[in-house]
Structures are given as structure tokens and as C-alpha cells.
């Protein structure tokens, strides 16, 4: 909302010397937030005057340009009355034109000081100005030529060009609809200084007389008040007066025609949207009703709209002629031939306005006000103001008939304990202050010793609850007076185990050289296709957004991999090729079932309702994904590097699990998007918690990531659920360790982890660790076989092991491997 300060001052008697900055600052402190200050001429100093061009001699220059050597009559503004010689490069004017001249000594925006200077062989004493040079616009079409009747040479142009006008633009919160008018802004301004306020809506209006245009309201809830006035003999060619055009321009409204401009002007003045009809196009009485399903209306923006039973419509005998309070119809619109005007000032139900606006995606200045709530008591005043202006400037006659249907609802009252503002804000607010402040915003207050009852003013439909009154009192006292007191410290339990464990996971991964990334959770079918995920895969069961940002990405993701791989590709394309990335984020796994209920708000949900609501939500487990590509260890002066591989991501998964006090086991698996031979299923106990390995080459190509990129994705919630927050101290044996190495030949497809587990099982309790240290395939072990070499360590808690003990344990381990896997001991 923009508000010219001169207009504010018409209704609010602000003290002398109040600066625009101070006014804006005080209004911000009251809740009308300063958005911007527009002071077009504030950095211009005169003399800036009207000049009449007397002579103009074009003088071609060597550089190909032509300049004009002009003499300009500036009256007595130059102190001599002699014409002023000025060089000007623009060509859009001629002798006799009135122009704007800044004389030597003047300063234009940007600190541009004007002095008489020698140029192109002349002494140029001043400058003929363009709108751009005056800071009034970006018009490059040359200098500003004033209308012939703008004034006399030598006249000051500050007022003519509104250069002294200052406009404050406010951000208006939805509860302060009353401030979307000069009436409201001025009321707040007066409040800010305790200054007198003259209400522009307070004007004598003729009473309803039954002779006005016939109006029937079938839906008094939707339209409690409908006022109609008519003007005849209106001259549709009459111009909008300059003062009104200028004000509309300052408000950011483009003047259109007198009739339209007047209705707009009064809307900004009083906050009450007005609609004007070409009365000659109306047939029969006006009716207000709800639309029938499927009815149509072509609104004045030219759109054909299908209406619903919730839309309030205005009709005449020809059918629907407008969407009440939102937008008029094309057929009855005022035009450049309209001489008979019917003015509608009606009060509309805000909720209906909001719904209709939303349904038809219509936003207008009128709609914004009607849906937030307008003062219902000023329909007659607003209509009267409009017909007065139409008659005055359009030469029409105000018809004597006045139609008023319905009456404004009575104003609600709110009762509060008198000390409520003090209790809620923690400020020291006396009862007198509370009463005075409520009266200052227009409430009628009936105060007792402990309680007060406030009758809310009609322009404040936002005030309905006790705490609303608290805010009103508090903002006038001033939020800067709210003391700063820490509440007593609660006895909180610190971070939950999950929360601290999640931090541990992040720190562990950063320590392992991974960089955390955050991706949007939106994916499309193409992403799942690129991953090679099959139709039956549960990762294809997605939650779909009704209004995705990009139509190609309509789903909430079920896997972190698409986002992660896109980020890998982005980094590679930007020149970083050795990458280790990780992401921790929830995925969305929808399940079938009922939707979430919309519950009442006047009580908390019952246990059953609460369960239903939570059951309707998709599962949203926290996932952890990470990716490696390029070199895990770089090559350098120290020697060769080592490319990242499937085994690194598996190792990282184990390191993460280890940080949570868990041990992951690994199973050979085959799952998209992994390489079918290089995919590990990660298992916690018997529960699968994720997969890790090298990507399928096709997936690498599809996402544009380097070949052999390796990734893992884990259900972090599943890990966190079993995390061991309090590790038990191990019982250390001080007896010496005994070591045995075993090399076993097994089938090539036997996972080493299985053989290691078997050895461990077979070796019994004396076995401290089993570590694979060599894998060999080749002629010596035969086709389809491999040799795995393990180092076994044995130790007893209570004695030094004998060679016999160790040998027996080793033999038992080998024996089990022979039995279970057909292993042969390698010589």
C-alpha cells in the first residue's frame, strides 16, 4: 500500500516538523511496516523552472552529432529577465515549447551540480531536463515537454511535477485490511502522534428513499449491505482532473477514464471497493444471489468463467452481470460512451470473497480488500463520494433516488480482564493506559474494576479475541518497552540418543573425507528409469505432488540416489573429479490407506483421531547415501593413487555402523542401480539395512557420472534404532597371543565373509579375530576356485595357550570350512 504524505496530512493533523522518515518509522513501530520511501525530488535543489524555448539552431558537429543551440525564456528566474543560452542534445522539441530548465547553481539527482560551462563553442548556462535527469522515470525519448498550459516561464516546477511529494509504501499484514486505504493510514498516523484525525468517511449522506435503482438481495449473508446511486448526463470524454491522476499515479495506478478513476480513487481513499455499471446496459432490477452450478460469466478481463454455487453473483434481467465484490462482467462495463452510471457500494462476506477469488484465480485491488474485511458502515458514504466526484468532474447529475438494501451487522464486543495486556506482555501497563489505547483505536470501552468490555470499531473486523486487544494495547505502548527476562530454566534431557548419534554419523563421514550435500527431494520417472529400477520395485511407489515446481519431477523421492548422482555430475562438470559425497535426508514411502482427517480446532484430537492422522502419513525414514568417484587416494609425488571402488563404499558403511557401535555384515546381492556382480547387501543381524557397491555402467552413463562410481544407500533410522550408545568395556587378557595362518581353496563364488564367519565359528571361543589378508585366483588353485588366506589370532583369558590348544582350534576351524564349503587346505 502506497500513501502520499500530503494525502495523509489531509486527514491527520501531524505536528509541524514531522519528517517523512519519522512518520514511516513510527508507523512501522505500530505495525505498518515501511517497505520503501519514494521521494522523487528530495535530492533536487533549484532553481528548477519552466522555460519557453525562443530559438533553436541545430549545429552539426565534427563527431557526427547535431546539438541545438537554444535561447530559453526563464522569466525572472535568472535574475536578469534575459533569455538563457543553453546547449541541448535532444531533438524532440521546438521553439514555443514549455520545458523544464535547471539553472546554474541547481543540483539534480545523483549530486549532479549545474554550472555555466563552455561546450561546443557556446557558454551553456543551465540544462533542459529529461524525466530521467529529474529522477522521474527512465524515458529516453528526449527532454520533458510540458503541456502548453503548464504555467509561465520562470515558474517553479517542484509542485507541478510533484517533486515535493513523498510517498511511503507499506507492507500491510493481512489483519490490518483497514490500512489499505488513506483513511486507515491517516488514522494510524494520527494515532502515532496523538494528533487529531478527520475521518473522510464521515459525511452527510442522503437517506434511502425507495426511488433508487431497484435492488433485491437474495443472500443477505453474502451481501449484507447494497447501496446503489446513479448519475445521468455524465460526459464520458471529460478528463480526470490532474490532481486525481497525479495521486493515482503516486499510488501506482494508471489513470484510465474519469469514471473508472473516480471509483478507484474512492477505494484508495476510504478502503471501500466500488463498482460502476453502464446503467443503460442494465435491464430490470439488480439481484444478488449465489450462482447455480455451471453458470457462466465473461468478466471484464475477457475471461469466460464457469461459476459454482458458492460464488456470489449480481444479475439483472439479462442474466449474470458480475461476480459480486470480485470482478464485474464485460457486458455492463462502463465504456467511453457511458453517460448513465450506476454506482454499487456493497458489503460482501469476506470468506465468500476469498473463496471466489481463489477459485477463479482472481486478484484485484477490490478483491484484496473485500476478502480481508472492509468497514461495512461506509457503503453510503463511499457511494455518495463517488457520485459527487462524477458529477463535479464529469458534468453529470446525481439522481435523487438512493437505494440501500440491508444494514451493517452490529459490532461485536470483547470482554477481557483489565490486566490482561500487562499479564500477557510482561510490560507495566496501567488500566488507564489499556482503556485509553483501546479508545484510541476506535473501541468503545466499558470498564469495570477488573474487566472491560470493548465494542470493536466497524473498520476493525480483525479484532475478535481477547488477545487481539492485548496486541492493540501493546503496540501503542510500544514493543520496545517489553522487558527482557529469561524464563526459568527447564530441566531438559539434552539431545536424544538419535539426535546425538546422527551428529556422530555426520562427523564420522566428514572424517572419512566425505562432503555433505543437501538435495531437493523431488524426482520424476526419468530418474527412476535412469537408475534402472523396475516397475515392481517398491521404490516406484511414490507420493505425487499436485503442484510440483517442475512437471518432470512430480514425486517425493523414495531414494536419495538420483539427487546424489546429479550432484556428483554437477561437481564433475565443474572440474572436481575426485569426489566423496554424502547426504542424510528422509525419503517418502507412501502406503495404502485412508487420508488424514481435517479435525475440529475447538478441542484437541481424540486418541483415535490422532492415530488416524498419523497413520495417514507416509513412512519417512531417514536415509543415508554416499557416493565415491575418481581417486580415493590421489596419486602424487608420493607415488600412485588408488581409484575409489565398490569396496570403499562398503568399508564406509561399516565405519558408519562401527561409529554407532554396530557391526554390519555383507551379503552378495543384485539390485538396481548397482553392478549385478558388485552389489553388497548390508545386513544388521538378520535385518537388511541397505546396499553398497559399484554402479551399473548404464546408470553411470545415464546420470553422466564417471565410470565405476560407487554408491551406498542405508536406512539410517534402522541403524539408529539399534545403535549402542553406551559401549561395554572389553575384558582384556594380558596373556600372550598365538597366531595361525590358514589358506583355503574354495569355489570362486563363495563370499569371503561367509568363509570368515565359518572359521570364526569353528575356531571357538579362543579365537580373538579372523582377518582375510590375501585372495588368490589362478592356475595353482584351478578353474572356478580361489584361495583365501586368513590370519587367526587366539588368546585365552586365563592362561597362556599351548601349541596344542592353538592347533586344535585352528583344525576345528578348517574342519568346519571343509564340511560347510568344501574347502581344501592349501599347502
Amino acid at each position, binding site marked *: 500500500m502506497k500513501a502520499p504524505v500530503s494525502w495523509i496530512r489531509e486527514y491527520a493533523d501531524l505536528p509541524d516538523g514531522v519528517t517523512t522518515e519519522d512518520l514511516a518509522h513510527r508507523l*512501522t*513501530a505500530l*505495525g505498518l*511496516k515501511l517497505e520503501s520511501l519514494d521521494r522523487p525530488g528530495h535530492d533536487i535543489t533549484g532553481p528548477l523552472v519552466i522555460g519557453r524555448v525562443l530559438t533553436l539552431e541545430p549545429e552539426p558537429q565534427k563527431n557526427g552529432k547535431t546539438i541545438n543551440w537554444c535561447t530559453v525564456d526563464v522569466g525572472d528566474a535568472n535574475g536578469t529577465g534575459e533569455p538563457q543560452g543553453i546547449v541541448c542534445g535532444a531533438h524532440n522539441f521546438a521553439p514555443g515549447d514549455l520545458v523544464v530548465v535547471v539553472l546554474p547553481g541547481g543540483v539534480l539527482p545523483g549530486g549532479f551540480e549545474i554550472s555555466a560551462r563552455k561546450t561546443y563553442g557556446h557558454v551553456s548556462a543551465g540544462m533542459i531536463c529529461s524525466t530521467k535527469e529529474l529522477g522521474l522515470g527512465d524515458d529516453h525519448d528526449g527532454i520533458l515537454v510540458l503541456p502548453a498550459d503548464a504555467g509561465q516561464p520562470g515558474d517553479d516546477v517542484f509542485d507541478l511535477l510533484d517533486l515535493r511529494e513523498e510517498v511511503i509504501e507499506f507492507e500491510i499484514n493481512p489483519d490490518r485490511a483497514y490500512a489499505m486505504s488513506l483513511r486507515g493510514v491517516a488514522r494510524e498516523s494520527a494515532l502515532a502522534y496523538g494528533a487529531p484525525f478527520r475521518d473522510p468517511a464521515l459525511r452527510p449522506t442522503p437517506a434511502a428513499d425507495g426511488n433508487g435503482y431497484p435492488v433485491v438481495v437474495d443472500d443477505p449473508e453474502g451481501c449484507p449491505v447494497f447501496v446503489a446511486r446513479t448519475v445521468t448526463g455524465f460526459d464520458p470524454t471529460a478528463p480526470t482532473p490532474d490532481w486525481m491522476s497525479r495521486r493515482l499515479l503516486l499510488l501506482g495506478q494508471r489513470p484510465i477514464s474519469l469514471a473508472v478513476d473516480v471509483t478507484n480513487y474512492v477505494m484508495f481513499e476510504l478502503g471501500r471497493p466500488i463498482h460502476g455499471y453502464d446503467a443503460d446496459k442494465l435491464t430490470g432490477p439488480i439481484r444478488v444471489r449465489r450462482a447455480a452450478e455451471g453458470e457462466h460469466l465473461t468478466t471484464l478481463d475477457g475471461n469466460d468463467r464457469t461459476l459454482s454455487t458458492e460464488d456470489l453473483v449480481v444479475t439483472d434481467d439479462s442474466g449474470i452481470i458480475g461476480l459480486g465484490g470480485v470482478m464485474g462482467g464485460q457486458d455492463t462495463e462502463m465504456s467511453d460512451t457511458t453517460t448513465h452510471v450506476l454506482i454499487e457500494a456493497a458489503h460482501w462476506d469476506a470468506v465468500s470473497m476469498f*473463496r471466489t477469488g481463489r477459485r477463479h484465480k482472481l486478484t484485484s485491488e477490490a478483491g484484496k480488500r473485500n*476478502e*480481508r474485511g472492509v468497514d461495512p458502515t461506509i457503503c453510503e458514504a463511499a457511494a455518495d463520494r463517488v457520485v459527487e466526484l462524477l458529477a463535479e468532474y464529469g458534468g453529470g447529475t446525481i439522481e435523487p433516488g438512493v437505494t440501500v438494501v440491508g444494514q451493517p451487522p452490529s459490532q461485536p464486543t470483547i470482554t477481557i480482564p483489565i490486566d490482561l495486556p500487562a499479564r*500477557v*506482555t*510482561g510490560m507495566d501497563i496501567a488500566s488507564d493506559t489499556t482503556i485509553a489505547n483501546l479508545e484510541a483505536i476506535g473501541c468503545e470501552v466499558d470498564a469495570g474494576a477488573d474487566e472491560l468490555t470493548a465494542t470493536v470499531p466497524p473498520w476493525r473486523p480483525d479484532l475478535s*479475541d481477547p*488477545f487481539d486487544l492485548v*496486541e492493540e494495547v*501493546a503496540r501503542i505502548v510500544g*514493543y*520496545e518497552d*517489553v522487558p*527482557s527476562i*529469561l*524464563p526459568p530454566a*527447564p*530441566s*531438559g534431557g*539434552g539431545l536424544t540418543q538419535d539426535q546425538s548419534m546422527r551428529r556422530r554419523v*555426520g562427523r564420522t*563421514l*566428514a*572424517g572419512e573425507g*566425505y*562432503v*555433505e*550435500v*543437501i*538435495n531437493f527431494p*523431488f524426482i520424476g520417472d526419468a530418474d527412476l528409469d535412469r537408475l534402472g529400477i523396475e516397475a515392481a520395485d517398491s521404490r516406484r511407489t511414490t*507420493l*505425487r*505432488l499436485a*503442484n510440483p*515446481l517442475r512437471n518432470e519431477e512430480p514425486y*517425493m523421492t523414495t531414494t536419495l540416489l538420483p539427487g546424489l548422482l546429479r550432484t556428483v555430475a554437477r*561437481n564433475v562438470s*565443474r572440474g572436481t573429479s575426485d*569426489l566423496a559425497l554424502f547426504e542424510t535426508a528422509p525419503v517418502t514411502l507412501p502406503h495404502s490407506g485412508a*487420508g*488424514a482427517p*481435517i*479435525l475440529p*480446532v475447538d*478441542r*484437541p*484430537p481424540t486418541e483415535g483421531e490422532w492415530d488416524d*492422522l498419523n497413520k*495417514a*502419513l*507416509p513412512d*519417512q525414514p531417514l536415509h543415508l547415501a554416499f557416493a565415491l568417484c575418481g581417486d580415493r*587416494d*590421489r596419486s*602424487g609425488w608420493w607415488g600412485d593413487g588408488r581409484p575409489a571402488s565398490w569396496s570403499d563404499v562398503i568399508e564406509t558403511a561399516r565405519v558408519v555402523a562401527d561409529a554407532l557401535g554396530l557391526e554390519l555384515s555383507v551379503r552378495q546381492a543384485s539390485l538396481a542401480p548397482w553392478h549385478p556382480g558388485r552389489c553388497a547387501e548390508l545386513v544388521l543381524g538378520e535385518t537388511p539395512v541397505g546396499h553398497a557397491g559399484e554402479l551399473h555402467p548404464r546408470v553411470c552413463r545415464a546420470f553422466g557420472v564417471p565410470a565405476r562410481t560407487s554408491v551406498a544407500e542405508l536406512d539410517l533410522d534402522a541403524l539408529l534404532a539399534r545403535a549402542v550408545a553406551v559401549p561395554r568395556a572389553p575384558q582384556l587378557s594380558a596373556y600372550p597371543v598365538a597366531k595361525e595362518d590358514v589358506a583355503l581353496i574354495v569355489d570362486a563364488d563363495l563370499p569371503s565373509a561367509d568363509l570368515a564367519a565359518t572359521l570364526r565359528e569353528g575356531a571357538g571361543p579362543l579365537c580373538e579375530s579372523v582377518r582375510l589378508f590375501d585372495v588368490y585366483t589362478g592356475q595353482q588353485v584351478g578353474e572356478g576356485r580361489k584361495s583365501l588366506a586368513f590370519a587367526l589370532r587366539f588368546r585365552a583369558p586365563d592362561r597362556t595357550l599351548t601349541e596344542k590348544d592353538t592347533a586344535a582350534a585352528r583344525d576345528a576351524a578348517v574342519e568346519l570350512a571343509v564340511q560347510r564349503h568344501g574347502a581344501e587346505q592349501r599347502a
Partner: protein
Amino acid sequence: MSGPNSEYDPVQVTPLDEEHVAAMRDEALAAIAAATDLETLKQVRTEHAGDRSPLALANREIGALPPQARKDAGQRVGQARAAVNQALAARQAELEVEAEARMLVEETVDVTLPWDRTTKGARHPITMMHEKIADVFVAMGWEVAEGPIVEAEWLNFDALNLGPDHPARTMQDTFWTEPAEHHLVLRTQTSPVQARAMLTRTPPIYVVSPGRVFRTDEYDATHSPMFHQVEGLCIDRGITMAHLKGTLDHFAESMFGEGISTRFRPSYFPFTEPSAEVDLRCFVCRGLHPAVDDCRTCKGEGWIEWGGCGVVNPRVLTACGVDNERYTGFAFGMGIDRTLMFRHGVADLRDMFEGDVRFSTPFGADL
């Protein structure tokens, strides 16, 4: 004690006289002094102190002397051998020091060789900012509450006094999910977590809830369809706006340094009444002239818009099962991404969501 040597050759006894013993000793000492490396000294040791050295042989011959001569000869030879051994030890030590010094010189490397064998890891600054904020509140005894990002419409809006026809509901451009009748949204704010806290905990409630939220904003330097918020909620007896101010002032000081406070301006949020915008005293210029005039952090304002806050609307307490006669509360919320942007001078919001490792790496693992 060895007996008389039957093969004793009196001619060979002469070397045991004083002159000869001294000559043997001096020859040994000269050889020791002349040894310039440990290898040579080892040879010298064998030659002059080993089993076959002249002094060792002489020592062996002492037993063959007549008893009256043995004492003197033994003393002479013993002293000579001791002197040789002492000199050997001393020279050994000297040469070892020299050898080590030489080795250290030889082993000198160029320590300016680059070392980037492994990639540097880092956590995302948003994650760390989220934790830093949580820690400020946990240190005050608050707890960290969390909730789902796909949330029930009722919790995201209705329970928070944003009824279906509330104009503010359209101001938050919401991602809706299909089917519409399931009434699920991507939460537009972390406030549903506050509602969950009230519905599942018993007062007093002091929780802070950082998390990601979604709005259908186009993606540009200052807007993102996904961003991060932190909200706080306090429900207790006798809670006032003053407690809100105290909490936010403490929060501001903890995050931005001593003396950095907040300012309230009246505003509107359906969740709170009265409501306020929170401005943060600029932590760079502190609003002091003349620094404030060209301060890029606050753009000359002296204050930075930080978030919103207010007294929890009693209607919200009712919908969330809190007895609004007994309890009052306050709530506040601010953008984590925005806080990070002005605290660390991030120019473009998109840097946070593009995953370029060059952006996150400098932040390391802790803010």
C-alpha cells in the same frame, strides 16, 4: 692363576717393559684418533683392543713372568688397555654423533611438497548451523523436537489457527500432494512440530525444532522451494512476551556475540497474538555511526530482519490440548539458511543446494 709357561721364551718378554707397553698404547691411541668413521674405528678396535691385539697378547704373557715382575707388568699393561678402551669409547661416541648429524643432513626433504592424498571431508553448513542453534537451547534446558516433512494439512494449518479460509493460507505457497482428499502437504513451516509437541507432551514444554520446509517459490538467489527453519516453543505458567524477549536476546548473544540484542516490531502471524517481527542488532557494525552507513551486512539499517515471534494464540493452545487458562506460551521462528547467509556472507542461496564441494569444504566439520 696360570702356572709357569714351559715354552716361555725370555726374549719375548721384553715387550712388557715400560717403553714397549707405552709404545703399544700410543700406537693404539694414534690409530683411534686417526679413525674418521665408525667402520675404521671398528677395525682399529680389532687391531688394538681385540683378542689378537699386541696389548692383549702382552697381557697373556704376564703369567709367564717371574712372580716378582708380574705385578708391575700387569699394572702397566692394564693401564695401557684401559686407556685404549676409554679412547675407543670416546671416539665411538664422537663418531656416532657425527654420523647421525651427517645422516640428518642427508635425509633433509622438501617439506613444502603438497599433500593432498585424500579428499577433505565437510559437513553441510546448514546442518552445523542447525546443531549450533539446537545447542544454544539445549544448554538452556530446552529439548529438540522433530516431525515429518510430509505432514497432515490439519497440523500444518488448521491447528495453527490457519483455517481453510484464512487469507494467510494462500500467502504460504503450499506444495499439495495427491490425492487431494488425503489432506497431506509438504510442511510450509516447522510449526506443525510445535503442535505435535503440545499434543504429545505435558507442560511445561520448552522445545526448539529445526528442520526443512517447503514453499512453491521459484528457485533464485534468495528463494528456494526447500529451505530450513528453526522454531521455538515455550509453554509454561506465567509466560509473557518478556520471556520471549529474554530468550531471543540470549539466543542472539549466543550466536552473534556479547551485546547483540533483538528488537520487536508489531506483525501478524495466525499462530501468535500478539505477534512481532524480530530484528537482530547488526553484529558487524552494531548500528554505530559511521560504520553503519556502509555496512553491507545490514545495508545501513543497523538491524537485520531475523524472524517472527509472539505469544501463542490461545486458539492454538485449545486445538493442541493445552489448558489456556493455566498456561501461556511464546513461539518464534527464523530461517536457518538466511541466518547462515548473513552470518557467513553467503551471497547466493543456491550455493547451499547445489552440492558443489568447493562451497561446503571450507566450513569443515564444525561452525
